[in-house]
């Protein structure tokens, strides 16, 4: 029996190999086999985590792109109208899975790739894209290392050093803070990096920096540490899963200091967790809800009408900043395709650096050094725990 099955497996291996190449090679011709119309197809790759540590955030980012795709499903490139198809590859928030996810998108014949949510996977996949000459637009990967020293990776968000400085300035301006407690997740380059830049700006001598290991549930000891240190602000730019627990435990332990965080916390998960609790939360973000009313109304409508989208958004229609960023990234990609007048990745790459777009999160343009977005301000928001909504506080720059 076993021998028989072994042979069966061997047959399957061979068969699937051929089926795989036969089946997919049809797509390369640009035949509209998976579109809704007879238009030729242009593919935009979505390189985002849909599982793993950053799965939730990645999905919210995708929502923005999907909504944009619903609003604008076609694009005119050099006189021809193309249907835009989003191709997805889940990078599982894992660096060792990133290269093959990236290769999937390249193999599917994408013209440009958007992503990712986090920086680690972007760095890991960067060379795969580079080898294929694929232009990539980072959406919310804020680590400087993503774009540094390469010419194919761009991004539309601000960078960690900027955000860290903004938050440090905000802490000093708003709360006259002299001591800060920084809590990052061990092994997470996002929170670790942001904490580092925050401490650089705030003064490392006045900070206590700690890291919790993955899978931590009990944050009460860290809250106790912050109290014992006598901190004025609690800085914890961690992922939303941990954030929900931190907020809950901060509230039940009665921490008397404001919590500061970065763009990841601009999410309904935080609002839900904080609603009705005695906590003060401030975040910096790319996008202020209400800044583009028609976008807000439109995406809420769409999320409410699509059960899957609603589930991916955590069950309600609160718009995450990353969704707005995803939305802008999509339009930026269309703009690039139009300017390039071609669907070839190489052509898009050649002109991408000069592309500009006026999005819901502000005007987007790339600098000439690394292809980073030119952004000089971030929005600071406060969580209104009684209504469960974000309240705009101010725009904060580095100075």
């Amino acid at each position: 029996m076993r021998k028989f099955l072994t042979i069966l497996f061997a047959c399957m291996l061979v068969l699937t190999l051929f089926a795989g190449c036969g089946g997919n090679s049809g797509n390369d011709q640009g035949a509209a086999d998976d579109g809704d119309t007879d238009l030729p197809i242009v593919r935009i790759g979505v390189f985002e985590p849909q599982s793993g540590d950053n799965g939730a955030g990645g999905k919210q980012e995708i929502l923005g792109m999907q909504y944009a795709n619903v609003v604008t499903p076609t694009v005119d490139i050099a006189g021809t109208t193309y249907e835009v198809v989003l191709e997805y590859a889940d990078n599982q928030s894992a660096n060792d899975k990133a290269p093959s996810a990236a290769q999937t998108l390249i193999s599917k014949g994408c013209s440009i790739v958007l992503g990712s949510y986090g920086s680690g996977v972007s760095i890991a996949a960067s060379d795969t894209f580079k080898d294929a000459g694929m232009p990539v637009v980072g959406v919310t990967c804020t680590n400087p290392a993503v774009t540094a020293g390469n010419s194919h990776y761009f991004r539309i968000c601000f960078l960690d050093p900027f955000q860290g400085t903004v938050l440090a300035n905000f802490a000093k301006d708003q709360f006259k803070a002299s001591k800060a407690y920084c809590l990052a997740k061990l092994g997470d380059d996002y929170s670790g990096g942001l904490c580092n830049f925050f401490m650089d700006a705030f003064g490392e001598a006045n900070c206590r920096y700690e890291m919790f290991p993955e899978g931590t549930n009990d944050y009460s000891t860290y809250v106790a540490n912050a109290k014992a240190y006598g901190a004025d602000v609690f800085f914890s730019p961690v992922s939303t899963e941990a954030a929900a627990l931190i907020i809950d435990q901060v509230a039940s332990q009665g921490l008397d200091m404001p919590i500061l965080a970065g763009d990841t916390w601009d999410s309904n998960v935080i609002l839900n967790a904080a609603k009705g609790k005695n906590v003060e939360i401030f975040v910096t973000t790319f996008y202020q809800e209400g800044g583009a009313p028609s976008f807000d109304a439109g995406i809420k409508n769409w999320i409410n009408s699509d059960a899957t989208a609603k589930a991916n958004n955590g069950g309600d229609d609160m718009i995450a900043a990353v969704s707005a960023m995803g939305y802008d990234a999509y339009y930026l990609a269309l703009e690039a395709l139009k300017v390039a007048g071609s669907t070839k990745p190489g052509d898009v790459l050649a002109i991408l650096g000069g592309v500009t777009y006026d999005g819901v999160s502000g005007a987007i343009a790339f600098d000439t050094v690394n292809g980073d977005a030119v952004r000089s301000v971030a929005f600071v928001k406060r969580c209104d725990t009684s209504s469960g909504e974000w309240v705009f506080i101010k725009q904060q720059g580095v100075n």
Partner: protein
Amino acid sequence: MENKRIQNLTSVVFLLALFALVIFLEQVIKPTDTMAMLLTVTKKSAVYALVAVSMNLLNGFTGLFSLGQAGFMLMGAYTYAIFTIESERRDSVYYYFDQVVNVSLPETLGGALGSVGWLVGVLLAIILGGLVAAGVAYLIGFPVLRLKSDYLAIATLGFAEIIRAIFQWRMLGPVTNAANPLKSYVRLSDFKIGTGDAAINISTFVAVLLAVVCIGIIVMLINSSYGRAFKAIREDEVAAEAMGINLYKHKQIAFCISSFFAGVGGAMLAMFANTVQANNFKSNMTFEILLIVVLGGIGSVSGSCIAAVFFIFASEWWLRGLDSGRFLGIFAPGIFRNGFRLVIFSVGIMLVILFFRRGLMGDKELPYYVKWIKDKLTTQKPKAGEANG
């Protein structure tokens, strides 16, 4: 004796054909082709095959149930990366720290000896990765190898976690870059013959070659007198001891060698993944490798290799359609949404374990089945022959 020679010859011919095929495919397939995925997953399969075989050496051939693989891979990956980072990009890698290791083996040797030196430097770094892993395994072995079965398993699992925590410790940041990724070191895609557009890419070939050489060494070890001693320990520790086999010494040897190759595998994984971060070497990685070993058959080297190929090809390529709405021509975005691939995949593994409990190959090797098919072929309908392709 004659039989053996034919068998060896067949293996050599098979391997040469494999190499030729890999090199050929690598030249034919462009990065933007659909089939480029084949190259990517082949590289990763090569890494996993090596790591799975190294785990099989311990779990399958020596009967030591160890779950420390991810920890040893981590050490190999870090050692390799640290010693091959381009010196001019070190500052950007160690963004938050002042790095203490300032040696790039390929650069130093490459400067002195040209491209041969570069290659030697890379190889040295890989071997160094293995040696560090083996060295730590040697130390861990003192307390751990006296433990039995499950206890050994959790103790090694625990050590892997401890190692991970140490590498993430910020006090060691100047060496390990703490929790931040290491990058800008020599990667698989740096393996090219020539420069510029005319360069011949041999990255997949290098990955496969490295894996084949390492697995080959493990197979030679298994077939040697020491390999027999390992099997004796697996079968019956008391009897093995009564045959004059020093249990501790032999377990230690198996443990160190297995860890050495896990370290080499880790270095290769680093070369493949372009970045190294301790966070990726979690116990889940060990479990994935264990699944490969069990699926392939505990005590079968070729089983591990085949299972590794299946595992990686399926999880990273073939089943991807399950995540994005379309699979085998069926379009059902409601069911085939993200996460479905992993569900199907894990259910598949579950079924194999329940109904196929000795794995794909049991403890037999490929030649056994080739012979079996040949026997079938001569006695029965000739149709089964195609399965061998």
